[in-house]
C-alpha cells in the first residue's frame, strides 16, 4: 500500500486556509500540466489558475471552502530517502482528505522553495557541495488538482521549510521498506 488515510494534521501546522489554497495554485505553475497553461497564461506568481475548480467554481478567486471538500480532493505527499552509505532508504507517505488536513499540509508545502534550482541540475555542484554518502530526499506532492510537483533535496540543504515538511511526513506518514 502506498497511502495512509486519516493522518492527523501535524500540530501547529494549520495556517490560513485561504492563503494556503491560493498559494498552492500559484506555485503549482512550475510543474504545470500543459493544459492548465491555456487560461493561466504563464501562471505568474499571484495569478489564480484553477485548481480543479473548472467544474464547480467559476470564479477566478481561489476557492477556500467547498471545492476542497469534494470527493477526490485528496492530497498525498511522499518522501523517499536515497543515498547514504547504503544507497537505498525508506519511503514515507502521508495522505490527507479532510479539508483542514489538506489545508494545513498545503500551507507547509507552499512554504517550501520549489522553484529553487535543484543542485542535481548543476552537475558541477555534485562535486563541490561537499562530501559523500549524504542522504538525498525526493519529495513528491500530489495536489488535489491532480497536479504533481517534485523536488530532490540533498541532506545538506534540508533546512527551514524543507526540513519541517520532511520531518512531519516522517512523523505522520506510513513508512515502506527501502527501495
Amino acid at each position, binding site marked *: 500500500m502506498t497511502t495512509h488515510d486519516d493522518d492527523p494534521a501535524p500540530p501547529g501546522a494549520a495556517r490560513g486556509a485561504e492563503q494556503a489554497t491560493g498559494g498552492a495554485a500559484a506555485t503549482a505553475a512550475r510543474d504545470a500540466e500543459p493544459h492548465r497553461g491555456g487560461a493561466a497564461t504563464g501562471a505568474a506568481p499571484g495569478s489564480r489558475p484553477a485548481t480543479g475548480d473548472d467544474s464547480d467554481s467559476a470564479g477566478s478567486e481561489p476557492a477556500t471552502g467547498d471545492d476542497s471538500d469534494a470527493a477526490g480532493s485528496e492530497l498525498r505527499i511522499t518522501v523517499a530517502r536515497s543515498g547514504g552509505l547504503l544507497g537505498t532508504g525508506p519511503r514515507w507517505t502521508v495522505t490527507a482528505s479532510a479539508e483542514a488536513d489538506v489545508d494545513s499540509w498545503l500551507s507547509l508545502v507552499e512554504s517550501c522553495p520549489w522553484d529553487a534550482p535543484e543542485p542535481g541540475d548543476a552537475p558541477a555542484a555534485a562535486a563541490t557541495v561537499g562530501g559523500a554518502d549524504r*542522504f538525498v530526499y525526493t519529495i513528491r506532492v500530489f495536489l488535489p488538482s491532480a497536479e504533481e510537483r517534485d523536488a530532490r533535496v540533498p541532506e545538506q540543504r534540508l533546512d527551514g521549510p524543507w526540513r519541517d515538511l520532511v520531518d512531519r511526513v516522517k512523523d505522520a506518514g506510513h513508512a515502506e521498506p527501502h527501495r
Partner: protein
Amino acid sequence: MSSSTRPPASALHCPTTGSVPARPGFIVPPYLLARLAEADAHGMPRAAEAARRSLLADPALRVERERAAVATPAAPASVWAAATPTVRRTIFDAGNAESLPGRPVRDETDAPADDVAVNEAFEGLGATYALLLEAFGRDSVDGAGLPLLATVHYGRDYDNAFWDGERMVFGDGDGEVFGRFTASLSVIGHELAHGVTQYTAGLVYEGQSGALNESFSDVLGALVEQHQRGQRAEEASWLIGEGLFTEAVQGRALRSMSEPGTAYDDDVLGKDPQPADMAGYVDTRDDNGGVHLNSGIPNRAFALAATELGGFAWERAGRVWYDALVGAPGAPAPVSPRATFAEFAAATVTAAHARFGAESTEASAIDRAWRTVGVRSDDDPR
C-alpha cells in the same frame, strides 16, 4: 615477451632481500624509517613493523623508488622536507545534535575515552593512516599530513556515516536496524578514502564517476580492514560494513565486494540491489545516479583481481587501483573527474603495465577481472 624482459618500470616492483618482503609502495627516507621503527611505542605497531622491514631492504633500490616518487603527484616534496609523517587525530562529539564539528573529546595525546564510539573512531583513523603510509607511502589523506578529524554521535537515531569534505561523521544508528557506525573499520576506511579521492582524482559524485568514487572508498575500506588484521586476499570477507546491522536484520553487511547483491535480504531493508556486472547496471536518478548501487561492478572487478593474485591485496591490485586514482610513474595523470568505468579500467591496466610490466600476472589478472564484469570487451587492447 617473457617476464624476464619486463620494461624498466618493473624496478618499481616489490624487491625482496633474502626472505624479507618489502612493500612496493613504502618509499620513505632512512631517517624516517628509523623513527617509524620506534613507532610501536606510540601505538602504531604496523607502521613500526613495516619500517623495520623496509630498513632491511636494499638501499639502492630504495633510492630508485624515492626518485620515482618525486615525480608522483601523490607524494609532494613537503613529505620529504617536512618532519616525520605523524598521524594527528581529533575526535569530536556532536552530542546527538546535527551541528558540526561538535565538542573535541579525544586528541592524539589523550588516553582512551570512556566512550566506545570515540575510541573506535580514533583507532580507525590510525589504521587508515597506517595503510596509506605503509602501503602507498602517502602521508595522510592529502599526502601532506592533513590532521584527521572525526565526529561521533551525530544526530539522533542517525542511520549513516558520511564524509563532509573535511571530516568523517558517524551516527549512532537507530538501534533497530543499525547500530553505531564506528563499529566497522571498513566503513571508517571508506569515509577517509573519500578524502583521498577528493584530494586526487576528484571523481564527480554522480553516475559512473560517482560509482567509481564509491568503489574506491570500498576498496580502501576493505584494504584497511585486511591490513589491520594481516589478512590475505583469499582469507578476506570482502564485506563492507560488517557488524553494523542489529541482530534483527537478515544480512551480513552493507555490501559484498566479491558477490554484489548478496549482502542482505531483509523485510525492512529489502534485498541488496547491487549489480555484479554491466548487464545489471542500474539507471536511476536516486542516490546521485546509483553511486552506491553500480559501485558493485568495479568492486567485484577489484575483488576478482585481488583474489586471483592472492597475497596482501594492498601490495598488487590495491597498489594499481591507487596508482590509477592518484597518478603514478608510467601512468602520470590521475583518472579524469568524469571518468567512466571503461576509462578507469583502462587506467588500471596502464598502471599495472607501468608498475608490474605489460606481461605481468598483475596486468593480466586486472584486465581479465574487468572483462568478467563486462566493463572491458574484446575491442579493448589487452
